[in-house]
């Protein structure tokens, strides 16, 4: 009985999530794809030695990215930031 109720609630939650996402699924997926495209472009251009035109502008993003960067290096097993010129903690 309890299993059935939990199953029904799970299904309800699943339908609710779908209902929440259905109208905007496309817009969000597209925004995410655009973000990834831009990232890809920057990574590839850096790799090919083309100076990153957004480097100066991305400086503004530093405060926003700080937390994510910190999460990343701790997740990677590095207690401190591996970049000499970028100390986050």
């Amino acid at each position, binding site marked *: 009985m309890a299993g059935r109720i939990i199953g029904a609630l799970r299904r309800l939650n699943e339908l609710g999530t779908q209902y929440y996402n*259905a109208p905007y699924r496309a817009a969000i997926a597209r925004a995410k794809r655009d973000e990834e495209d831009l990232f890809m472009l920057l990574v590839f251009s850096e790799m090919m030695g083309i100076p990153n035109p957004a480097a100066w502008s991305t400086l503004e993003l530093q405060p926003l990215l700080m937390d994510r960067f910190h999460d990343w290096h701790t997740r990677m097993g590095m207690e401190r930031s591996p970049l000499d010129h970028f100390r986050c903690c």
Partner: protein
Amino acid sequence: MSAIVLLLLGLGGMAAGYLFYSRFIANRIFKLDPDFRTPAHEFEDGVDFVPTNRYVLWGHHFTSVAGAAPIVGPAIAVIWGWLPAFIWVVLGTIFFAGVHDSGALWASVRNRAKSVGALTGEVVGHRARTIFMIVIFLVLLMVNAVFGVVIAKLLINNPGAVVPVWGAIAVALVIGQLIYRRVIGLGIVSIAGVIALYSLIYIGPQVPVALPDQVMGLSASASWILLLFAYAAIASLLPVWMLLQPRDYINGLQLFVGLILLYGAVLIGNPMVVAPMINVDVPPGTPSLLPLLFVTIACGAISGFHGLVASGTSSKQLDKETDARFVGYFGAIGEGSLALAAIIAATAGFATLADWQAVYTAFGKGSLTAFVDGGAAILAGGLGMEVGVAATLLTVMAALFAGTTMDTGLRLQRYIFQEWGDIYQQKWLTRPLPATLLSVISCLLLAFGAGGADGSGGLLIWPLFGTTNQLLAGLTLLVITIMLVRRGRPAIYTLGPLAFLLIMTLMALLLQLKSFYDKQDWFLLGLDIVVLVAALLVTLECAAALKKAFAEPAEQT
């Protein structure tokens, strides 16, 4: 007469329409095929094309098409008495809207889920597509300008609603963050969001907010309209997950709760309909019922806007072709039931006929105020709710609907400007910010240009919104009819509504043309002429396309 009779007759009629008529249309006319590979499967990309559960898709479709229009239109139209509005909402939903909405889905699904605009270009011709672009721009312009005025009026008439209406934005922002960052499950967030919204509705009347009569020479109405457009511009520029998505979601939940409460209150309280069955003593200046009834009630019966949603997003997510009946036709029934609630609130929520007449003093008066005041009385009588809280609840319901439609409308208008920037190679116009600014400016020009200093121009053009919107529905019906004729199937079920709509729209436009000329209102006269020319062109396109379709041998599909 008891409102319960009206409620049961209306809902019963629509249920019968769904059970019998929609089955006939789906099986015999559209011949919906469960084995047809829908575009959602054929082009599945996880972005636009995603097969979706039909209940979920119904929810998406219904809440996307439900704006303030199914409330505003019927609440104005009861000025001719409750019977004409009731008949048109019930029969219009069954024989017009349901067929139109499910037909738009079918037509789009059978054509690689193309939008009705693209379909018009392919099925009817390029001239029709050009008219379509103009009509759609006008509809969006009018929707945004009208809804700005409608919300401003609601906030002025009910200062208790200011806190919940603006507070709902904060609730949506928090919900968006919680869901996006997956801090808590959707179920708990939804319940917490609805509780927060209803708490605001309870708090609202205790902290009423009213703008001063004059701020820098602007009336309260003008100030609210400017604030609303500033908000809508920001909302339409923000990423959708941040505000629009959670706002639409709690709005949808609120709609279901609101409808259940209102219908429950009618069944428990059994209010009496005090408005006349047919009002022979209409206020001076009220236009004739025929044809204005059929353009005043737009979304409550048939609406072109539904075709845009059906062929825009719903058709790309349809899992099985047979689901078109449930999603499209039952979506129209949802809209009809909202219109029915508006009729009952605006006719049975008054103590006496004199009270009702005191509200309906002129055409266009009453409207949402009648819905809010009448509905509040019904909620108070049936559920024992405090009148102030009930009025706030209904005001918030209407204002949130108008608000979310405005957000989406402004975003869509921005896309049109950006598209024009692309077509005419004006790079600056393809950027979101200038395109949004132009959209806002065009709406404000309409609001203040036609309405003067208090910015009420949107409401003056409401009947023009009706005609433009019905033209859009006509174009969609034309596409469906031509597809049916080409397949050698009976076309009378869409051709009949198409002819009726075109005749009513043309009649209404001509009548309005005369009245604008008499009032020497050159702005509205110009706008009326634009719509009239579009209507005439649509009629000619209809005749030419149908003649050609009938002359061609039918394909056997």
